[in-house]
């Protein structure tokens, strides 16, 4: 069963055409690596798959409910004035995560944010915020993961953490990840998409 089907997908911002004629098939359990220079439309493609943007032309069919979809954007999408725990508490409620407290505790532990769980995100470093974003994305155990340059602003240690996480995810989830460093994910990739 394919999770994402795109035919002749195009997206235009005003008069500038960012994506044109994209055909894509992402089967269940695939690990698709999207590459391309800045401005080639990687983020636009992921936003389209996440349902945040509507295609200007062509068709895009994403067979995953919002409940089954996790989207890691450039921004962590967490409230800076709230603490890590409060942010995950909010998303946990909105995504109706069962045993919310245990799940949040486990994720904070795994991404070594447990000690700073009561601190505001505004005090977090870029790397810590990115790790919190990962917690947000994985909180509701989504079937489909859309990760927009997950390694950006991460130090070596955090990058290894992400590597381990992606290896675990690749096994049982469908993943579409955009990156500037395709070699790092070469082992896991089942398909590649190079945007001009």
């Amino acid at each position, binding site marked *: 069963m394919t999770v994402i089907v795109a035919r002749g997908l195009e997206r235009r911002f005003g008069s500038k055409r960012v994506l044109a004629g994209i055909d894509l098939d992402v089967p269940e359990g695939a690990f698709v690596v999207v590459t391309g220079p800045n401005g080639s439309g990687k983020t636009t493609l992921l936003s389209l798959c996440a349902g945040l943007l*509507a295609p200007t032309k062509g068709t895009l069919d994403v067979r995953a409910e*919002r409940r089954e979809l996790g989207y890691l954007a450039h921004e962590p*999408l967490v409230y800076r004035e*709230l603490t890590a725990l409060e942010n995950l508490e*909010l*998303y946990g*409620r*909105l995504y109706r995560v069962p045993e919310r407290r245990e799940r949040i505790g486990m994720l904070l532990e795994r991404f070594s944010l447990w000690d700073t769980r009561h601190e505001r995100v505004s005090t977090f470093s870029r790397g810590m915020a990115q790790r919190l974003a990962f917690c947000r994305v994985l909180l509701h155990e989504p079937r489909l993961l859309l990760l927009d340059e997950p390694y950006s602003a991460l130090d070596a240690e955090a990058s290894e953490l992400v590597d381990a996480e992606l290896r675990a995810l690749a096994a049982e989830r469908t993943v579409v990840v955009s990156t500037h460093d395709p070699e790092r994910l070469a082992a896991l990739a089942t398909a590649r998409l190079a945007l001009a």
Partner: protein
Amino acid sequence: MTYLADVAALAKKDLLLELRSRDTLPAMLLFVVSTLVVFHFSLPSGSSDIAAAGLLWVAIVFTALLGLTRAFVAEREQRLMDGLVLAPCDRSAIWLAKGLSIVVFLLLAEVVALPAYALFFEPVSGQMVAGILLADLGIASVGTLLAAMAAASRARELLLPLLFLPLAIPVIVGGVGASVADDPARYLGFLGLYDLIFAILSWASFEYVVTE
């Protein structure tokens, strides 16, 4: 039931954010009182009470505008609207939660404004308070939707007043009427009608304003 749970979670977040940053509420409280003081000096000495009632309403509407301009600032600056829109909850819950927090801010501002008004101008009548409560609902429901629209555009501080004021004219007419007329029933009824129609319209169209 989960719809109300979503609204509760989102409203809690909005109030918590305000408690943490403490920038919208204090500004609204100070703004409404200073506006009344400015009006005192701008009025000819023998200002009739009708003018005074009108000025209270202008102060309330512009204080609401101040609060509404701040309504989606977090969602916009950190692109958090994407995070909320991605959640499986009904998007109108975002509108209802934000609207409720705006009503709370307005009520708190009015708790300060009405005694000041009674002090500066003339006593506050029961019918005026009823008018204010009904108007707050209308202002919050339409204002929240317009604030979301303005948040998605470039010149949002400029745009929101332009979008909001024409729609606020009926609220001002109903409000001032309720405050001043000898039989306020007609005006309170009109405010109720406005609230009902525009709350439903805003509730139904919010989804189209925040998604593509």
